[in-house]
């Protein structure tokens, strides 16, 4: 007997039942006269994989930057975990439980893989400078405690062999994986992935897809991802939101979005 794919109704129902983690209401962002995001509302629910797609320049990355506080939207209300957000600084996003990776790899090139991931736990380490100078007692205990957590993530993503390698010398696919590890080290509730598979070959894409599903499944992390590979997006995500020219043109489960005429127009172009 084969396992049947769930029907559209079942998928929709499952999405309905989940609690809302992040809610954006009528968010607008502009740089001077350029409108990056116009009046967008959507939500991300706990435990789902939410894809944000759209043609180049649609405002996807700006959207992520708004979510983690890098940009301040001029209008709109953002509610995270039931709390309305007032002003936001990027370094505070982590303590609220939002972590992200970047479109172009943004690792700390001069540091080893281990140090990069440990840096992801910087906000969780509390010992003061005096203890750190001694590197003894509480400071050492803290360091070891976090090292254990980091090693778990290293095991999870299968990067044990490059633990001591400076990340600048690693191949691109592994760098992306280290970046994911660093984001996981922050133990986020919401993980934002900006094109996690850009520039990868098929095998690396398959590995990365598997890791994303595992993170979602085993750690229970909610994931919002931007990706251009439609095959990957449709296979991975629970729900998809489509942006074009800073506006939302579609929102729903993959099957719905795929058959939406506006989405097809946006991607293929349409004769006017």
């Amino acid at each position, binding site marked *: 007997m084969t396992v049947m794919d769930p029907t559209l109704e079942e998928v929709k129902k499952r999405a309905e039942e989940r609690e809302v983690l992040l809610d954006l209401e009528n968010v607008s962002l502009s740089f001077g006269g350029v409108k990056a995001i116009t009046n967008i509302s959507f939500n991300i629910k706990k435990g789902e994989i939410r894809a944000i797609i759209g043609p180049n320049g649609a405002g996807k990355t700006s959207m992520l930057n708004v979510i983690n506080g890098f940009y301040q939207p001029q209008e709109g209300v953002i509610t995270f975990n039931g709390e309305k957000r007032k002003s936001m600084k990027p370094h505070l996003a982590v303590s609220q439980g939002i972590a992200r990776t970047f479109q172009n790899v*943004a690792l*700390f090139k001069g540091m080893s893989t281990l*140090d990069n991931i440990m*840096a992801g736990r*910087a906000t969780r380490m509390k010992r003061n*400078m005096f203890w*750190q100078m001694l590197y003894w007692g509480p*400071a050492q205990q803290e360091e*070891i405690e976090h090292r*254990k957590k980091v090693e778990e993530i290293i095991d999870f993503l299968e990067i044990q062999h490059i633990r001591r390698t400076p990340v600048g010398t690693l191949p691109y696919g592994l760098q992306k994986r280290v970046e994911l590890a660093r984001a996981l080290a922050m133990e986020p509730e919401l993980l934002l992935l900006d094109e996690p598979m850009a520039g990868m070959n098929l095998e690396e894409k398959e590995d990365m897809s598997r890791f994303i599903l595992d993170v979602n499944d085993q750690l229970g992390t909610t994931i919002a991802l931007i990706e251009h590979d439609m095959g990957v997006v449709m296979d991975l995500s629970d729900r998809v939101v489509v942006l074009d020219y800073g506006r939302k043109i579609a929102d729903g489960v993959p099957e719905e979005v795929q058959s939406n005429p506006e989405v097809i127009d946006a991607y293929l172009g349409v004769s006017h």
Partner: protein
Amino acid sequence: MFYRTSGQFKTTYESDQALFPIKQDMVLLVVILAAMYVVFPMFASEFTYKALLVPVLIYSLASLGLNILTGYAGQLSLGTAGFMGVGAYACYKITTIFPEMNIIVALFLSGFFSAAVGVAFGLPSLRIKGFYLAIATLASQFFLVWLFEKWAWLYNYNASGAIEVRTMDIFGLVVTGPNASPMVQYYFVLGIVSVVTFAMINLTRGRYGRTWKAVRDMDIAAELVGINLMRAKLSAFAVSSYIVGIAGALMVFFWKGAAEPNLFDIPMSFQIVFIAIIGGLGSVMGNFLGAILIVALPVVLNLLPEMLGLSIGSATMEHVNVMVVGSLIIMFLIVEPHGLARFWALIREKLIIWPFPH
């Protein structure tokens, strides 16, 4: 062969994160420390102390301070000598206002003044980076030297405009002033340099080190990892200036004995920048290697013709010296742009896997 690591297994994270995960490193350090603490004092003359050992230690310390800021946190600074001056003048004022105070306490207190000044001049780093920040710190250099000249209270209204260190003792042992024995001063400086170096090794391999390096390598990513950029940059300025200030106070109190404001002028700032770059940015050990090359080598070269029985005029020797040291610096930078510390790291790596190439 000497560096073979086979048989050294790590079974706990504690031992994996130890200061010396490889036993041979520890042996090497013990040998060096034994040489510094026991062997050198057995043979050193007053000249060796005054011209070689003490200056190398003090310049290493100053360069270590700069390295925290430039090598670890990535904030270029050209104001090192000015901050050394702040430490020296602060120590001078503290010892005049509280004549009974132990010099060690005064020394560590004076570091806080240079740290405060460093943080104040580090504020522009929140908005500007790279060469532009270097120019901003250069301004602090000019301003501080001007202040040392014009603010007579700083040098106790001396007619000469210089500060002179009076005789001070610790539990009866004379450590500063003209009567102090060079050996005592050497031990004093060595002790302080050892303690500060130990603290900095630990600081740079822990959370602070990672935070600084993250800011250096990619500040936007650092911010999104949850690092407060302002706090990271200013803490680097504070720690760096603190160490640099102590180095300045040591220089005046335990080496020169007196100082005029122009001692803390730009040439010394540049010299310390050179030590840090040639030694290796982002390394603690590099500062010592760099200081040996830039501070000690010229002195040794000056002595060379005399030892070989050649009669070369001292003026000629001075020129030859500049040429030799200059070409050595260029050679080292071509062979290993990341400094002597990286050079050593490569040699060590080769030794560990010897006789295999990979």
